């Protein structure tokens, strides 16, 4: 029995020894951003749409705050949320309109990836999966579909397997108390339980992580305030020590 542990340990060491470089993507969230200092050292994901599912309706708008960068964003991020003040109807018309809005606001010049950021409660998972399915159907074939995910979804929940996306991005910040064991696990060299969550991850400037899986996976970088060069270089420096 103990040999199995030894084998596993050796396997982990072998897998962990050759770390392919990760591609960094800076998130330009809904605030003024000047990312010219990033240059081509990282890609940029631009929040280009903001959608609220309210009752049986859809409220949708584009980005309100300017982004300055050299080059173009490679990812268009559309944030979706449910209006908690009204019971969600999720009618066919609403569902159709929501997907169309995501697709419309996801059309950002230069972006070959559309990312949906939509946090849902347990009872609302069907809504998320419906939306992703509809968006996938309307997405051009040369465009990839990505979704953000609570880190906990990648650990204990299997419904994520039904998500028709090319990329799942577990967010390793603001995890609350439940996130601490996961953080400890990752820092100790572990990985997400769900293999679909092992191609990308997201970290924040204010949630330090002593270690996280690398191996060439895409890493999204979050700053709770408008990015500054010190925030960016500080985070990159910490990540270099993983």
């Amino acid at each position, binding site marked *: 029995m*103990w040999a*199995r542990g030894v084998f596993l340990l050796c396997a982990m060491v072998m897998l962990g020894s050759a770390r392919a470089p990760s591609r960094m993507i800076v998130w330009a969230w*809904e605030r003024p951003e000047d990312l010219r200092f990033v240059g081509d050292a990282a890609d940029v994901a631009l929040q280009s749409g903001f959608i609220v599912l309210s009752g049986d309706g859809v*409220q949708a708008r584009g980005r309100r705050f300017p982004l300055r960068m050299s080059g173009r964003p490679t990812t268009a991020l559309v944030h979706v949320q449910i209006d908690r003040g009204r019971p969600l109807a999720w009618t066919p018309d609403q569902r159709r309109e929501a997907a169309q809005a995501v697709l419309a606001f996801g059309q950002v010049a230069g972006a070959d990836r559309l990312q949906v950021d939509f946090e849902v409660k347990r009872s609302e998972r069907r809504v998320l999966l419906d939306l992703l399915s509809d968006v996938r159907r309307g997405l051009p074939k040369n465009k990839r579909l990505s979704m953000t995910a609570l880190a906990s979804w990648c650990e204990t929940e299997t419904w994520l397997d039904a998500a028709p996306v090319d990329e799942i991005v577990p967010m390793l910040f603001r995890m609350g108390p439940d996130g601490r064991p996961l953080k400890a*696990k990752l820092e100790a060299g572990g990985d997400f339980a769900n293999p679909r969550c092992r191609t990308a991850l997201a970290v924040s400037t204010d949630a330090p992580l002593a270690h996280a899986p690398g191996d060439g996976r895409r890493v999204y970088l979050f700053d709770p305030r408008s990015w*500054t060069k010190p925030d960016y270089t500080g985070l990159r420096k910490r990540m270099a020590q993983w």
Partner: protein
Amino acid sequence: MVRRIMHKAVRVLALTIFLFGLTGRAYASGPSYPEPWYVDQYEGDHADLLAWFDGRLGIVKRTAPRPMRYIDWRLLHGQAVGEATGNVLATPCCNNPTLTTDYSGGSDVWIKARNAVTGLNDTSYIQTDRPGPDDTSVTNCFPDAFHSAAATLNDRAARYGPKSAAVQAWIAAQSAVFQACHDPSSELPPPMAKMPPWLATDRDYQAAALALYAGRNDEAAARFAAIAKDTHSPWRDSGLYLAARALVRQAVMVKTPSAYAKAHAALAALAAAPASAMGRDRVPALNEVVAFREDPRGFLTKLTRQLDAAAPSPHLASVFRDYTDLGEAATAKPEALDWIDTLRAAPPALSPDEQETKDHALARYETSRRTALAHATQRWRASHDAAWLVAALSLTDATDEQTPALLTAAGATPPSAPGWLSVQHDIIRLTLIRTPPAASRRRLDAILARTDLSVSDRNIFAAQRAQVAASLDDFVRFALRRRVCGEAGYPNTWDATTEACVRERWDIDQIQSSGIYDGVGDKGAIGWGEDALAIIDRAPLADRIALSRNPAIPAKLRLDLALTSYGRAVLLQDTAAINGLAHDLETLLPIMAKDFHDIEAARPGADKRFAEFVVLAKIPGIRTDLIDYERPEGAHVADFQRYWTDWIILKRPGGPTAPPPLIRYQADGANFQSDFQDGVWPDAATDLTCLGECGRGAAPLRTPEVFAAGAAKAAAERAMFFKTDHADDKPEPTPPPGAVDAWDEILTYARAHPADPRIPETLYWLVHVGHFGGSHNHSGKRAFELLHSRYPESIWAKKTPYYND
């Protein structure tokens, strides 16, 4: 159709204004920082808010949004606010995307009407935003336009037949109009041959609307003006108004004298139009839209007069918003804005390229405070305006040269003055350390006896009172605080009808950890103030144990005290304390009653130590300080959260003697936002009473005498605590010679007592410890090997198919 309802006249003003430097709140995915829970810079729950709007001014809090601080300014100057005005100022104004706007029910109304007439099922999405500069989007078409179009279509279909060629041509043209909402290259389809007159006049209107949406404002204005003169057009009455709107939009975009002149002319024509002309009542608001750009200084003067009016106006929020936007750009900041920004004393932002050293960061922060203090003091001396005294007091430290004069003036403030409570808070803050505690107690007891304190202010004064407590019981009475805003929800559950607190309007997502309140998780209403946590963490073991047995303290908080004290007692190998706490914990943590009972029942020596260490292996959140600790919660031991630390028992003093820096206790409040917090921000510069929300002046923590007497003992005890937790960029500390690791000792005991029925489970937990952070010399791997070699058929071995160490 173009028609759009302007709900508030000046909202158009705010909506058309777009500044690159606008700093809206961040839309983080997921929750943001935990917010302070017993101090609320958003003035608390509904009852406290109403009292505030009504004139009950408490302690002014610098970190709230500017419109809310403007309420304080008004109250300090005897100007009424009232519920209606207070509510609009306490809500993000004008273009905050979090608000439920009137953008719903727009295009879908048009789509349904169109499909009903055409018989088609065309549900193509109509994008209503047009591209702006720097990857922004600007809302171009509003719901009213779609509603109006749907109503017009229904009318035309009813009159002329839904299948008629003319109605179909109308629909095609209107679709092109709405295409222009997003795509300026959209064009009307070619006109049908032999258009009936009604279609021709409608088409003229559609052409004008399309030009407006496509951004060709001058063309749109000319077309609308022509419509205004066309006696046959059913749109005639709206022609002058829409022409004026188009020219105002053009003027705002290009900002040239000729564009302004054209806009003024169009507005003058509208003002002179017959009473039936649409939009005449909008002329003043549209003039303001132009004035904002054309004559910002003059317009700012006008806004200032409006704000200075004694009676509040329902449009105050948008007036204040424009006042703020113009005031920031003005050469001389208007006074209310100057006061608010001085109070906040925000350090100047670094440029995106600028890198900062620790010393530079500290200096930058301190310089901003001193600059603001000098300015506030100068303004107060020049004006004798109480608002400036309040600001200066909030900024000053006890050692600043301005402080004696400010304290003298503060002492002369009568209790009837609106800023009295704020002044009292700062008087006490500045003198607490040197004033005899009995005198401070008298002053604070008199304040706390008032029945008109907000929950937040009562907590702040209680924090000051706790620091001059006369006894442990007295300390407990004031160290426990009442939660201000009810239980935080995630995701954000703001509901206009049921919201607990205004803070949720400002896009704050709150996650509070467990172990703060007297409930489970983030539930509960009572908790320790941050000042109290720091005082308790600095107390000797005996005082902590006494507190953990105080019946006035809620059980969950006593559990926290008992467990952190237990951790200390184990490191000190204080058998009496260990036994006593183990006995208490049988009741406080019944799910582990047997484990605690085993400690009491164990023979002194290796048996007892084994039992003590088993508890450490099963509760990951135990630490020696409350600031690092996490309460065990859940129906099973396996539900307990947190990663483990390594427990090292020293034979002689050798650990660090300094307690955690005070800035760590201020983490949830307003503080030094940088990477350099721990160990850099001096204790004397912190504010655990109000968590930095009340002002930039420091509130050095005062340890009550009842605890101060044990300071030397506490320091001696702390020298026996060896922590292996370390910063990411630092190596793990090496234990001194003779130190014993708890996990090592468990393994030694396990090997020596193979028949002990506790061993398999204990080894299981050691593997867990190794998996989640607290391993010592691969203790997890060693435990795994021992478990599987000696107890392969046990359920514990079966539950542990692998290790990760």
